[in-house]
């Protein structure tokens, strides 16, 4: 649209400018499509993601995002930013206190265990189980070397799970009775299960908290837990199912009020045969009894 002198005409410039402004202003609206927003625990995410893909064929649009962990998802639900929260820990009194206006309803779609995993050199160095007291010692920095625990003479490299993670809450809850009672410590942190496994596997003397489904027994190794004078209980699926393994957690979908519409479809799908086989496929445990949505 060259004008007389070869420059774009005034009209062309106006048009171009308007288009540019319109694009810039429209971008936020374009991305806010009417999808069901699901945020929260990275433990639950793979199951819900695959369920969402299968439900897409039925015309449902579901956005699954593991950002924030269980606590992050619950906070987002309380703020009304998302529709369904995924959590790998039960709701706490403090969650209800922080969001008094929210009617939290949670449904368990499966179970997971939190394992304490170590790197190969520690496992093969003879450390196969730890007691609650020993783990407290590690967590509080009193026990510094594996040799104090019957293992190789190497420093203990403890990767602490990010405090927002359900995995950490369960671990700290078991270790100290209540996660809020855990002492204030500073360790290098790891976030997702993927990162945890990768870092433990590639660091000598490493130990961290990991979702039991991710402990493959090849790169990282799950320790047995000793409670009191009891024997060591490994996080095998049998031990977890029969509730012998102490650090077990539910996989929860949480909604504000009873789930309806797309959220309801999602919950029903996951509690049905197809959904439960997804849960198992990802290394978690199925729900034992028929589902009833309960307010906690």
């Amino acid at each position, binding site marked *: 649209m060259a004008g007389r002198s070869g420059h774009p005409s005034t009209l062309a410039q106006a048009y171009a*400018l308007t288009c540019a402004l319109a694009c810039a202003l429209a971008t936020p609206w374009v991305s806010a499509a009417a999808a069901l927003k699901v945020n929260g625990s990275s433990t639950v995410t793979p199951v819900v993601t695959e369920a969402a893909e299968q439900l897409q064929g039925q015309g449902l649009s579901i956005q699954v995002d593991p*950002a*924030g962990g269980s606590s992050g998802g619950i906070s987002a639900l309380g703020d009304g930013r998302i529709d369904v929260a995924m959590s790998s820990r039960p709701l706490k009194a403090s969650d209800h206190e922080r969001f008094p206006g929210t009617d939290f309803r949670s449904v368990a779609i499966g179970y997971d265990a939190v394992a304490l995993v170590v790197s190969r050199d520690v496992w093969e160095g003879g450390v196969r189980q730890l007691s609650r007291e020993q783990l407290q010692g590690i967590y509080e920095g009193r026990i510094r070397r594996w040799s104090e625990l019957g293992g190789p003479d190497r420093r203990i490299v403890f990767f602490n799970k990010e405090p927002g993670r359900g995995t950490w809450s369960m671990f700290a809850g078991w270790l100290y009775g209540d996660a809020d009672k855990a002492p*204030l410590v500073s*360790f290098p*942190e790891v976030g997702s299960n993927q*990162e945890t496994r990768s*870092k433990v596997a590639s660091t000598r003397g490493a130990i961290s908290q990991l979702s039991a489904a991710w402990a493959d027994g090849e790169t990282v190794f799950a320790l047995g837990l000793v409670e009191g004078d009891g024997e060591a209980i490994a996080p095998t699926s049998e031990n977890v199912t029969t509730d012998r393994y102490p650090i077990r957690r539910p996989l929860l979908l949480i909604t504000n009020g009873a789930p309806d519409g797309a959220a309801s479809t999602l919950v029903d799908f996951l509690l049905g045969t197809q959904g439960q086989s997804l849960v198992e496929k990802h290394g978690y445990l199925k729900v034992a009894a028929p589902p009833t949505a309960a307010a906690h």
Partner: protein
Amino acid sequence: MSPDGSTALTVPQQPPTSSRLAGLARWPWIYTGSLVATGLAALAFLGMLGLFAVESLPVWRHAGLSYLSGIEWFFRVQRFGALPMIYGTLAVSAIALALAAPLGIASAVFVAEILPARLRIPAKTAIELLAGVPSVVYGLLGVILLRGWMQDVLAPFEPLSGDTLATAGVLLAVMILPTIVTLSEDALRSVPASQRQAARALGFNRGEAILRISLPQARSGLVAAVLLALGRALGETIAVFLVVGRQDNQWPDRLLSLEPLAAAGQTLTSKLGGSETHIAYGDPLHWAAMLGLALILLILVAGVTLAGSAVAGPSSGRAAPGKSVRHPDA
């Protein structure tokens, strides 16, 4: 008036004025549009700054200046001290610059001055491709390749793992290197060839011509390149997040010693990029503390970027020596 005196082909023009604004009056949409866009950009930045300042007020009231000087961060008991993270950010960026600046400028000298002309384009293309690699890819490469290697390199300091401030610094150096090389190479090439030629004709060898002519005359461009790369390093999140260790409260006993660099640490970006931001959202004080970190980071990066522009600015307008010609006088 054309040379033969006819006026038939001349285009009617507005009377010439000395003001460029008057010239722009012929294109009202461009003038208005660019004014609006510039204004919006400036407002957006100032708005951001103001927003973060206001939203972080609770933590300033709670902790006062100890927010900046405190060395403990335990959010569960509402203790917020950002100093170890400021240290981490500065340390990681300093390591990155120390590694990337000399190497980058040397590479730029090589590409601009020594490489034969036909190899210049492939070399520049390769470097610019590196500059375009997404941060997360660098981060993953860092996790896969760099952590193990750094733990070996830093063995005398006995780091717990390969996640250290030094690792993040090295990774950042790799990431900002292409930026430094490209910008420095541009700066060097903007030095006129006639300058180098005149130096060679005086008997300078190639190295001396580079040292005495190219580098000094490109100096402001080189400084700007380094400052802009520093700005990028300060703000880099993903790659640093994956390899820095993310251990809070790592405050060195002695500030300028090397040992803390071989240990895990936390930077402003690695803290902000973590999940604590999501946890913080429900708690006003915690949220304010996180936004305060963002405010500090924003001011740091803005300061460095402004410095970089200020250094680059004046030189882009100066007439190249040898070309600056006044009208002849006696």
